[in-house]
């Protein structure tokens, strides 16, 4: 290889990688928009009384066993999401943990379940489309027949939601599918999710994402102490209301914008990070990752050009003989 060719080759490589890098930031796709008829839930931690009716109902709908503590089934002691638990009520307590919805010496409940991201990381990283975002409802569903069990969805989920059943030789991923999975299909039948139906206080409220966001913002606009008529069940057609004084809410709705937003949104009186919410910006990691991948692999153009160039170079070098001795 002469000096000229070496420079040509190295220049080409440099230009290619620089172009890829430069364009990746330009071409990177924006966050996905919410699905047109996105359904979701609004969890208002200040309304939650910790009855765990939603946990029980969820297990009932999904046919999941309780998680015993110490081998005996006395009650459901699920600590976190797992292959047996798609929805769990947790607590953040500080100091004496005496007063609800207060940070210092207080406590707050928190509901952990799939957030049904608007721009879901799990869907973006799944190699075999086992996780899909429904084009209409935005529900993130799981297809067990496609799944290869690589668990990339678990790494790609900012909330650690998908759970693989490690204790089963034929284990699968378990996650909330908004009660619309095959054989349940509550949403398709015009019903609401099990947890929203069971919730006695309306802490878990069902509805379209737009209606829920409106409701959430209405609550944030109220003065603390003002009495508000909180709806229960489905925000569009509540089965009943109940009056309660408005607490001092955090000023944002979690899930309006975080990492592109979520269909399951949260309200709380104490900072969201205390409730285990991850440090997220407005940009979804899925959009960044897909931006980079998309730039490099757009229509496989770049790899094809690279392959062509490489083939030409290798062929020339093999046939022309190496410049510094040796041969195949």
């Amino acid at each position, binding site marked *: 290889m002469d000096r000229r060719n*070496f420079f040509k080759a190295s220049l080409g490589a440099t230009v290619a990688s620089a172009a890829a890098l430069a364009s990746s930031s330009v071409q990177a796709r924006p966050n996905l928009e919410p699905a047109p008829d996105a359904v979701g839930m609004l969890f208002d931690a200040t309304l939650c009384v910790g009855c765990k009716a939603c946990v029980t109902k969820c297990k009932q709908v999904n046919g999941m066993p309780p998680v015993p503590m110490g081998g005996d089934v006395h009650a459901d002691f699920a600590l976190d999401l797992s292959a047996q638990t798609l929805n769990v009520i947790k607590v953040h307590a500080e100091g004496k943990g005496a007063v609800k919805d207060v940070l210092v010496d207080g406590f707050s409940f928190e509901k952990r379940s799939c957030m049904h991201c608007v721009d879901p990381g799990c869907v973006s990283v799944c190699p075999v489309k086992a996780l899909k975002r429904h084009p209409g409802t935005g529900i993130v569903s799981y297809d067990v027949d496609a799944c290869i069990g690589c668990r990339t969805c678990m*790494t790609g989920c900012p909330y*650690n939601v998908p*759970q693989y059943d490690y204790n089963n030789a034929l284990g699968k991923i378990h996650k909330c599918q908004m009660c619309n999975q095959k054989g349940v299909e509550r949403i398709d039948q015009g019903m609401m999710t099990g947890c929203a139906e069971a919730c006695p206080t309306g802490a878990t409220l069902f509805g379209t994402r737009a209606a829920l966001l409106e409701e959430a913002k209405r609550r944030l606009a109220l003065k603390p102490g003002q009495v508000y008529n909180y709806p229960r069940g489905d925000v569009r057609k509540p089965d009943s209301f109940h009056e309660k004084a408005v607490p001092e809410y955090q000023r944002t709705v979690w899930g309006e914008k975080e990492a592109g937003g979520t269909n399951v949104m949260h309200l709380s009186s104490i900072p969201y990070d205390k409730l285990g919410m991850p440090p*997220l910006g407005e940009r979804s990691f899925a959009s*960044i990752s897909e931006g980079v991948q998309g730039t490099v692999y757009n229509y496989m153009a770049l790899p094809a050009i690279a*392959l062509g160039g490489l083939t030409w170079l290798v062929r020339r070098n093999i046939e022309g*003989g190496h410049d510094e001795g040796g041969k195949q």
Partner: protein
Amino acid sequence: MSEYVELKRPLFTPFFMALALLVGLAVVFLAVRFVNGMGSVANLNGGYSWGIWVVYDIVVGTALACGGYALAVTVYVFNKGKYHPLIRPALLTSLLGYGFAAFGAFVDMGRWWQFYNLFLPWQMNFHSVMLEVGLCVSAYVMVLSIEFLPTILQRFRAQALAQRIESVLSRALFFVIALGILLPTMHQSSLGSFLIAMGWKVHPLWQTLHFQPLLAVLSAFTMGFAIVVLESSLAAAAFRRAPETPLLAGLGRIIVGLIVAFLVIRFAAILWQGKLGRIFAFDLGSLMFLIETALFAYPLAVLISPRGRRNAKKLLYAAASMVLAGALYRFDAFLITFDPGPGYSYFPAFPESMVTVGTVAAEIMAYLYFVKKFPVLPREEHAAA
């Protein structure tokens, strides 16, 4: 006529039998894994869904197997024919590394009996880094097998069939070699892209977002050269052959350039993203980063002088340090400083780590088998020349 010879040494040495024992243990644990599920041998959980099986066998293992890739680029793209004698052992380690990485991926697959979905076009999610890695690794294992096929066929040269295959192969070989360069470039960069999608769980010092693919492929490439040096030096020491230092010294020069490029890009990315202060936070992340940087810096310091490059021992130490640096870079990003949130913890279980140890042992056994039964290692005179 060939520049390669088989090593005429007994295969069943005590060392070989000891490795067999480790492999046997791993097989037992694997049987348990397939009967009782992954949880019965591995310590994986909801936050750490990938343990050492993925991070060592695939992420680090394929990078360690980049010797064939690095040399192919040098020999066939930059036309440095003098390195050709090194290419067969490098191809062998690559083939073994990638083969066992694919095996590791299969073992780690929770629903392995459905793995074929990866190859059904209507199931493919083209946004997925995992798909890209899966397809590339599968394709590359095949490419490596084809590239390595001449070595196998050489032994059976007498047979007419072998000759016919070889003649067909030699006509298409340039394309195969080109593929064998493209594929690792693609998926080694993708191993970096994995980290983008993992988002906030990756420590800020390792979460360089857009720079991930470039840093990943650069470090893999550097590790490829280092592993060639390492493997050649270890083989020379173990089989009491003359070291191929003059050839390796040339690789040392390339390594220097690559390390400089890697470090410059990495520090620039960290600086640009305003995370420089994190380096001196002296928490776990900062300490690991400093150890890593030291491991990168040592080969740089040694190999930058021609004297250091020509010293067989120093060359070996530098290569070992580089290999450790590259491996640690991946371990840190994917496991050690990876934090999926409060409450999660991971450390491999004993059976889990023994499966990985068994995989490595199997790789070494296969390497010994091939170099002793097939013409893989370069002729000694050639190397000394």
